[in-house]
């Protein structure tokens, strides 16, 4: 069942008299519960796709539909995580993670009177990412990897149908990054939200996604859509199997053409 549907979507940025075509004629759809990844050379409009799907930016032409409804403004209740963890330094990890509950209906109405229940729910989520002991700490007392885990928890606590990840592991060291792929996959296998991952890292894309879209350099067009038919759960060992490596090479070759 199609959940997100883009038809001929373009976006033009206007800066003074100059106009830049950031995204050209994107047409693709994401099924409900599918996890897709968008890869491409830097500056190709990957993040633009995220902003268009969530309605943070209006499309210059074309149509974006989410859950059958045309997107005209920011759609509600989406989970988002960026490369920068954007945790609030004045809130503890627990309070940071509970933020969506203070904003998203129906939790918003119930939040004050059912705080304990929500805290238990957040605690469970923190346990799955291995942060249970850090709930009362402040973000700046956590390492970069821990901050990014909290960031994921915040994006998922309200069980959004749509999760947007914009290079969430980009600033982490290689070991932490690979560990968090596993965490992310486990969360997805449990909750089965629809996921959109924007990344530079082809191994990350193949590890996590059901379908990988390759974009051309600016103006961004989708030049390849590749189904990843590796069974789940995938592990780090999977990433060394020939089929995985072949897929990564195929994507790499397609992107190299863009740089040629």
């Amino acid at each position, binding site marked *: 069942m199609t959940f997100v549907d883009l038809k001929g979507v373009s976006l033009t940025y206007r800066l003074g008299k100059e106009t830049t075509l950031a995204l050209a004629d994107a047409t693709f759809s994401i099924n409900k519960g599918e996890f897709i990844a968008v890869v491409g050379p830097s500056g190709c409009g990957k993040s633009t796709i995220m902003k268009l799907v969530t309605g943070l930016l209006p499309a210059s032409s074309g149509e974006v539909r989410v859950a059958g409804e045309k997107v005209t403004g920011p759609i509600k*209740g*989406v989970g*988002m995580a960026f490369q*920068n963890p954007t945790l609030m330094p*004045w809130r503890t990890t627990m309070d940071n993670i509970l933020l969506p509950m203070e*904003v*998203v209906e129906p939790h918003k109405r119930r939040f004050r009177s059912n705080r304990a229940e929500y805290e238990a729910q957040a605690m469970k989520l923190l346990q799955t990412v291995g942060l249970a002991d850090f709930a009362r700490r402040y973000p700046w007392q956590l390492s970069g990897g821990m901050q990014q885990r909290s960031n994921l928890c915040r994006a998922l606590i309200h069980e959004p149908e749509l999760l947007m990840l914009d290079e969430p592991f980009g600033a982490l060291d290689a070991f932490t990054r690979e560990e968090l792929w596993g965490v992310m996959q486990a969360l997805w296998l449990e909750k089965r939200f629809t996921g959109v991952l924007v990344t530079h890292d082809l191994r990350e894309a193949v590890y996590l996604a059901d379908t990988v879209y390759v974009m051309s350099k600016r103006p961004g067009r989708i030049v390849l859509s590749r189904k990843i038919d590796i069974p789940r759960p995938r592990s780090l060992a999977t990433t060394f199997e020939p089929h995985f490596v072949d897929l990564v090479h195929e994507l790499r070759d397609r992107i190299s053409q863009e740089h040629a």
Partner: protein
Amino acid sequence: MSDLRREALKIAMPWLATAVLLIIWELACIAFDIPEIILPKPSKIFTVFVARFDILMAYCWDTLWTTVIGFLLAIAGGLLLGLAIGASPFVYSGLYPLLIAFNAIPKVALVPILMIWVGVGSLPAVITAFVISFFPIVVNVATGLATIEPEMRDVLRSLGATRTEILTKVGIPRAMPYLFASLKVAITLAFIGSVISETVGGNNGIGFLMLSASARNDAPTTFAGLFAIAIMGVLMYAICALVEKRMTRWAFRGEIVG
């Protein structure tokens, strides 16, 4: 042990520096035989300070409460206007030039106008303290709001947060360290404001006391007044700094990690 000594020295430093300054002053007065009417010796000022302590306190009290009331009004008004300016680009572009123009006016020039409007007394002092300490608060609060990370805003918008929710959940907490930083500047400015008003056209407060003392060529009393203002300024600054640390502990992160 040496760590402890360094710590003790750090605490003692401000007192030592003040003492050294006063001693140099005292010695210079003696060495160059400076007449008391031009520059009294610190020891003389101290004697007068003690002898006239009651009078000084009474006048200090006047200055203190007018300053504090003006300052509190400035916090309330500055916070509101700062939030409005920081949250809305239209309010910003509309009011910012006006604010800058107003801030450029020397506040001394306002006092005669205020006296025409509200008469002589404490009210002009309160108003002058208010208008002079208002500006840094507005600018700082607006800056705090304007520097919210765009990603933070995006996270909240995609959750479906309203503008008010973004303001209360991110904007105001984010602006707090900026507000408290500005208070330290604003409180000293507030003293300048109230004393200016008392000096130009008052019948009360330490500024008025200094003015009448200098009219009698009573330099030691005038200087005693200066010292009193300086002491009040430092005390109020210390209170503001303390409140700042209490309210925005997260902004002083390094210190409580241990």
